[in-house]
């Protein structure tokens, strides 16, 4: 059964992404695209003529997608959370390498930003894993979701996680990585056709990845987890519609000055 879910993960993420586009449109009081729009895009991209810069560049996108899929699968299987964070790191490194492997200045700029985003959110993800371990006594996700009440003991850590969700799903105010047309998609710039599709689908998987961290905070109660995910989803989109983009150094400063102390404070509080 779980293998079916893993196989369907990109489709699941696509539904989330489609729902999000409709939701954002409704927040701006417009109609928005159809709910299944991401899949229409995917089928269209399959049929486009594909331009390749060089083979490793194209293959790195595919590798990035499968590495990300693997880390999402590991979450579904309930493996070690710390292990999953590092698996995800590998996926991101592949993307950054792809960004540096072509000569386009925008691609380099995008890869730089991707790297800085990694610097911003990676410590928080690790601290979240450690915090959950300190409360539940296990790094395994299967162990974590058998205990309840993380929210009562890790409220500040949850707030820190909340601050990095927009970085991961590339939403304002922390959407420097994609930045609409400012850097023309950053690392995605030289991709087209089928290979762009892999990057497009890996965006769906990012949604599943980061929202499953939110879900774990629900603990043993699936309903609490679902409510948390829905609430964070709404909040992130609301903030996305209401704020402007901050610059990359500002983003790092905000994360290190606000989210990091919150997370560390929470850990110290648990340990004392």
């Amino acid at each position, binding site marked *: 059964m779980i293998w079916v879910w893993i196989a369907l993960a990109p489709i699941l993420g696509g539904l989330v992404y489609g729902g999000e586009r409709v939701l954002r*449109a409704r927040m701006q009081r417009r109609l928005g*695209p159809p709910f299944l*729009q991401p899949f229409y895009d995917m*089928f*269209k991209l399959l*049929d*486009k003529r594909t*331009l390749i810069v060089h083979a490793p560049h194209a293959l790195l996108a595919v590798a990035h997608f499968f590495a990300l899929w693997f880390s999402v699968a590991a979450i579904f299987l309930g493996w070690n959370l710390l292990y999953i964070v590092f698996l995800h790191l590998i996926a991101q490194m592949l993307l950054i390498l792809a960004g540096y492997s072509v000569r386009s200045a925008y691609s380099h700029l995008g890869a730089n930003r991707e790297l800085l985003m990694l610097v911003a959110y990676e410590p928080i993800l690790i601290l979240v894993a450690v915090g959950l371990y300190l409360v539940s006594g296990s790094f395994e996700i299967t162990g974590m979701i058998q205990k309840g009440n993380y929210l009562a003991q890790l409220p500040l850590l949850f707030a820190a996680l909340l601050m990095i969700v927009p970085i991961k799903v590339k939403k304002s105010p922390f959407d420097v990585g994609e930045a609409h047309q400012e850097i023309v*998609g950053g690392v995605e710039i030289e991709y*087209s056709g089928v290979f762009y599709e892999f990057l497009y689908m890996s965006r769906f998987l990012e949604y599943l990845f980061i929202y499953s961290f939110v879900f774990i905070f629900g603990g043993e109660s699936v309903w609490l987890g679902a409510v948390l995910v829905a609430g964070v989803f709404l909040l992130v989109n609301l903030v996305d519609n209401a704020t402007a983009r901050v610059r990359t150094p500002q983003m790092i400063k905000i994360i290190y000055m606000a989210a990091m102390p919150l997370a560390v404070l929470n850990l110290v509080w648990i340990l004392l």
Partner: protein
Amino acid sequence: MKFFIPFRKKSPWILHYNAGSCNGCDIEILAALGPKFDLERFGVINTGNPKQSDIFLVTGPVTYRSRERLVELYSQIPEPKVVIAVGSCTTTGGVFRGMYNVEDGIDRYIPVDVYVPGCASTPQLIIDAIVKALDILEAKSKEIEKPFKLFGAIETIGNKLSRLNMAKKVELHEKN
């Protein structure tokens, strides 16, 4: 493949290029993309990246400086693709016709599928043009489409393409 063809119509991504226009039509395009006219309900995304676009929206009468970019952007869009000339000055030269530093319309350089009249053309007209372009996009094959004119012959160093030398040639062309 036949299966994929209907989906072309459902997710047209556009690339917008200003080839020296007065900005009137650009603002109308943005208005069409904005919440009031909401082009996104057709699945349109304004990508800004030629390699991922299907529809090329051009405004402006093509100044000498923008010719090379226009042709370059056009040839970077993978097939199937359609070109929409938005505004009178893009189709015929409009108010700029006969000026010393512009070409009269983009169809001297690239094949155009849909012409939109008006100075400035309204968002309603632009939406109509995109809907029309979708029919053309669906009927097109994946044949390679070439621009009418290319600037500067291919220049190579060793056996690699040299963009620098090609760009220098264009500058020479512009001076003369």
